[in-house]
């Protein structure tokens, strides 16, 4: 990919807006900004804009190494020297450190400029090894390219170059070759400024300056892969791509990564194999950054363990046998016929059919499955969330904020129930930037410190179970309250901050698995009563927001409308609509456990791992008469319980669209073919329908996109053509454009009182981390080792009181069960809280959860 940064033209737009307000239209509007001369041409540029960007706006590219538009300029490399005359005669100035001023005369091609460029390149190449033939960056290397375009062609240097040990690992996935480093400070600036993980630094500054980590303290940042993307030479390389291809062998396509942020990516492949994802600088979304988990996850879709052909539970020669112990290979026609037969038998009683999952799918897959389940089969037992999120009807009733609104200068953001650094990497980067550079006040209400606590203007510890009451006290300004861990002073201060704020964005995560969803809803309720408030859902699973918008939830129809409100609208468009509101995942599993579900479809879902109650998940999957799985991998649930498995296409193998947490629909594009006979989810739905003798009415993913736009007023603007054209995607927004009524927020009244905690107990908090034992992480060889083993994190004082240290084994007991695990002492956890990350090896705390109680308290014994 070219290193040319996307320029930020916000200022120009603002000036444009002002110009259009000028009243007399006959006077031609003056061009915005001040006049400057670039290589003899007069252009207009906004005062204060970096000269290097202004030149680029004028079509003149100034070579550079250290300047990056998303980071503070440092003037390290001097490659961008140009001759500038500001009235005192021409002089060489680094254009990345100089802002535009009226009448500036710039020459980027003068003799002096050329001499400077020659000199800088000759100097940089003094120590840079000429190992381009064996260097991964060769072919896409800014140093190589700019040496060709601007360099002197030969060097006068005949002495020995600097030598360092050839590439050293600076973490599990990134290698550093210090000989190649040109000390541009991009990676170190990224680590410090952008990611907030300054674990690499310039050391031995002087003749032997080098980038390095502290001994035995690796660059363990969730974002380390970005440094590889922005390094202007081959000094930083990433293990998953090293020596896999040459840039000129790669072809690429721009797409959207299926995470809740909808990060924009470039998918690069060679010979039908995806070899790399790069972040794309989308102003609205990820600014070019990606979390490592997403960047390196292509390994997972390229994994050989992917399902490549349909499987059925059966015996020899692929004969279907529901009692069979194994999944055996089958054909699409046989597998589809088996699914269709079961659905056909079950459809007389639609509520005996259930669909769990769907967040992995594109909008098109989701809509096709929603139409099949709700519009053809007539069941409303459909839920894309696995009892670990926020009820869909709650989310649909909240005004959606955009990321840009949340990060708008001077704003206030309340974060509840999530650590964006662990759950939504690029949202964390955006919020961190906003807090540091744009004076955005962050107020966080969480049980443990988060990655943003140091940037937060208020970081309040809230004991799990108290969230509703604390939020209520903060919004109402209850000055008498001291609630659990949250002091009166903190509540008063947060109330004052909220009162002083104008527009507020509330980022709401799904909180702890061990905390009842009702508590998150109570907290939402408290904030929803405020007038100027918008919400951003921090649900993290793939395209979960698309799933909700397209009706993959009980009681919902596509377009964020309820079953009742939308029934007549959709009766015109679909063969049928569900007669009654269906079950969510928990209720479906419970119904299945008692034999009331005939066909249970798992759309990329793994209830055994993700559902908060593994026993119920097991009982439900075992009790369903037939389990059909549409998935990339035979995950635990699929392997143990599926009767028919249909292989699906993954990211990079299908086209369509994706909806991010702000309701931005952007293009998903296909780069390679799916393995074996795996196919896109919408196609699978359409084929199941065909085997049922029905026609879903679309034959390509574009047709599905257009049908969504036609039937859902919310999606009216998101036609296939509009999505294809819009670089940053189409924002669905909040405004209703006719059609059935949308959800509106209804006040739920006062929150339930806080649950007291006795002094011998700990409150259980099951939170999520970037790397866990999820299918995606485990099936990517570079990511799998990053998942830490399971542990109980305790505050140092609690650990002291219990007499435990790091590694001590303890037994945790709730009313329901006991589990054992090792302790990790962690000052970021609040006192009285036992924090356990969900889905880490060796410790599954879900057994402890008392599902009906608002929270779970546990006792800890040392072993």
């Amino acid at each position, binding site marked *: 990919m070219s290193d040319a940064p996307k320029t930020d033209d916000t200022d120009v737009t603002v000036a444009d807006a002002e110009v259009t307000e000028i009243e007399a239209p006959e006077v031609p509007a003056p061009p915005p900004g001040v006049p400057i001369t670039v290589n003899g041409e007069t252009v207009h540029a906004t005062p204060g804009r970096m000269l290097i960007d202004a030149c680029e706006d004028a079509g003149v590219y100034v070579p550079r190494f250290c300047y990056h538009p998303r980071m503070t300029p440092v003037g390290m490399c001097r490659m961008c020297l140009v001759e500038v005359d500001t009235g005192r005669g021409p002089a060489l100035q680094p254009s990345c450190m100089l802002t535009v001023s009226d009448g500036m005369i710039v020459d980027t091609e003068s003799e002096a400029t050329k001499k400077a460029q020659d000199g800088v390149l000759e100097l940089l190449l003094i120590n840079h090894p000429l190992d381009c033939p064996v260097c991964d960056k060769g072919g896409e290397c800014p140093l190589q390219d700019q040496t060709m375009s601007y360099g002197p062609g030969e060097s006068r240097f005949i002495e020995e170059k600097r030598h360092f040990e050839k590439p050293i690992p600076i973490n599990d996935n990134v290698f550093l070759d210090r000989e190649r480093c040109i000390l541009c400070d991009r990676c170190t600036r990224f680590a410090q400024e952008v990611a907030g*993980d*300054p*674990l*690499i*630094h*310039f*050391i*031995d*500054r*002087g003749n032997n300056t080098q980038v*390095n*980590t*502290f*001994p*035995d*303290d690796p660059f363990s940042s969730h974002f380390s892969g970005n440094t590889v993307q922005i390094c202007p030479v081959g000094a930083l390389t990433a293990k998953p791509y090293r020596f896999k291809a040459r840039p000129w062998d790669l072809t690429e396509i721009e797409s959207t990564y299926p995470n809740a942020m909808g990060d924009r990516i470039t998918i690069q492949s060679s010979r039908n194999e995806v070899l790399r994802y790069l972040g794309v600088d989308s102003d609205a979304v990820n600014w070019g950054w990606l979390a490592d988990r997403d960047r390196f996850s292509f390994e997972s879709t390229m994994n050989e363990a992917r399902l490549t052909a349909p499987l059925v539970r059966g015996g020899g020669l692929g004969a279907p046998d529901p009692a069979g112990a194994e999944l055996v290979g089958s054909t699409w026609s046989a597998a589809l016929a088996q699914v269709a037969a079961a659905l056909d038998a079950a459809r007389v009683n639609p509520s005996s059919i259930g669909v769990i999952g769907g967040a992995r799918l594109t909008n098109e897959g989701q809509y096709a499955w929603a139409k099949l389940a709700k519009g053809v089969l007539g069941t409303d037992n459909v839920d894309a969330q696995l009892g670990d999120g926020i009820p869909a009807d709650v989310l649909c009733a909240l005004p959606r904020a955009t990321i840009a609104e949340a990060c708008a200068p001077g704003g206030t953001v309340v974060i509840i129930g999530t650590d964006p650094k662990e759950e939504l990497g690029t949202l964390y980067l955006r919020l961190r930037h906003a*807090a*540091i550079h744009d*004076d955005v006040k962050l107020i966080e209400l969480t049980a443990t410190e988060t990655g943003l606590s*140091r*940037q937060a*203007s208020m970081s309040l510890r809230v004991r799990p179970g108290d969230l509703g009451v604390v939020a209520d006290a903060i919004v109402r300004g209850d000055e008498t309250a001291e609630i659990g861990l949250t002091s009166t002073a903190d509540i008063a201060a947060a109330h004052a901050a909220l009162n002083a704020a104008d527009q507020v964005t509330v980022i709401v995560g799904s909180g702890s698995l061990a905390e009842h969803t009702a508590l998150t809803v109570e907290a939402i309720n408290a904030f929803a009563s405020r007038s100027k408030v918008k919400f951003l859902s921090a649900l993290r699973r793939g395209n979960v927001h698309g799933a909700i918008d397209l009706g993959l939830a009980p009681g919902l129809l596509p377009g964020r409308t309820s079953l009742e409100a939308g029934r007549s609208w959709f009766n015109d468009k679909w063969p049928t609509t569900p007669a009654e509101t269906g079950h969510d995942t928990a209720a479906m599993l419970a119904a299945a456990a008692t034999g009331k579900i005939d066909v249970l479809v798992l759309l990329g879902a793994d209830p055994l791992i993700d559902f908060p109650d593994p026993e119920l998940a097991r009982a439900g999957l075992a009790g369903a008469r037939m389990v059909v799985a549409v998935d990339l991998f035979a995950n635990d649930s699929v392997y143990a319980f599926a009767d028919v498995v249909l292989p699906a296409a993954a990211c990079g193998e299908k086209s369509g669209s994706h909806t991010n947490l702000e309701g931005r629909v952007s293009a998903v594009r296909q780069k390679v073919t799916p393995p074996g006979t795996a196919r896109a989810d919408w196609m699978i739905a359409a084929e199941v329908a065909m085997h049922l003798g029905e026609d879903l009415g679309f034959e390509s993913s574009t047709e599905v996109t257009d049908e969504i736009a036609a039937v859902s007023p919310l999606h009216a603007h998101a036609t296939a053509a509009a999505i294809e054209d819009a670089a940053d995607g189409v924002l669905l927004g909040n405004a209703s454009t006719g059609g059935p009524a949308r959800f509106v927020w209804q006040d739920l009244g006062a929150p339930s009182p806080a649950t007291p905690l006795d002094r011998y107990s700990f409150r259980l908090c099951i939170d999520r981390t970037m790397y866990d034992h999820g299918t995606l992480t485990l099936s990517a060889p570079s990511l799998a080792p990053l998942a830490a083993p399971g542990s109980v994190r305790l505050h140092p004082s609690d650990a002291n009181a219990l007499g435990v240290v790091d590694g001590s084994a303890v037994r945790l007991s709730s009313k329901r069960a006991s589990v054992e695990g090792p302790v990790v002492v962690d000052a970021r956890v609040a006192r009285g809280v036992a924090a356990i990350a969900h889905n880490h090896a060796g410790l599954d705390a879900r057994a402890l959860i008392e599902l009906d109680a608002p929270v779970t308290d546990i006792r800890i014994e040392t072993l």
Partner: protein
Amino acid sequence: MARLSEASLRIAHEILGRYPRKKSALIPLLHLAQEQHGWVTDDAMTHIAELVEVTPAEVLGTCSFYEMFKRSPVGKFRINICHGISCHLLGAEELLEHAEHTLGVRPGSVTEDQISFEGVECIAACTEAPCLQVNYRYMNKVDADGFDALVSGLRDGSVYIPPHGTLALSRQVIPEDRAAGNAMVDDPSAPSWWPVEEGEA
């Protein structure tokens, strides 16, 4: 290797108390760590990182910039032979070579009886060139014989040189009311007169 000792930690807290921002105490704390063993151990850097709330990599970045912070063991007696311009002109290189022969080790290494030496840049005593320092105590106009006399004096104890340590002969003491008051390492609050910027610890 060693972190800061109990005694050093007490001083460290006092040093931290002088500054409105903990990070400002970084260099004084590195001096303190160096005082402990004559060099700054990795563990001490990690410990300092915890105290001033930065990463160990940032401490290393600062520490490794300064020649006078040593990151590998040094002798009990550290001889710095100046080879700045004046000293160079008046025989510093010869003196260095002589030192190598007398001590039997290369510059930067330590003899069995705990003497180390190295060439350093101008130590600001050019009028007395060639000159050297032993644990930062100056010896002026040193020739080969002078050097040998120094070494044998150090060996038999007839030349007394206080232990290596910081440059100051006595520790700086800042009265309570002049200190910034960040005395509690757990309390990040800045003194009232210090304008705290948003987003800063």
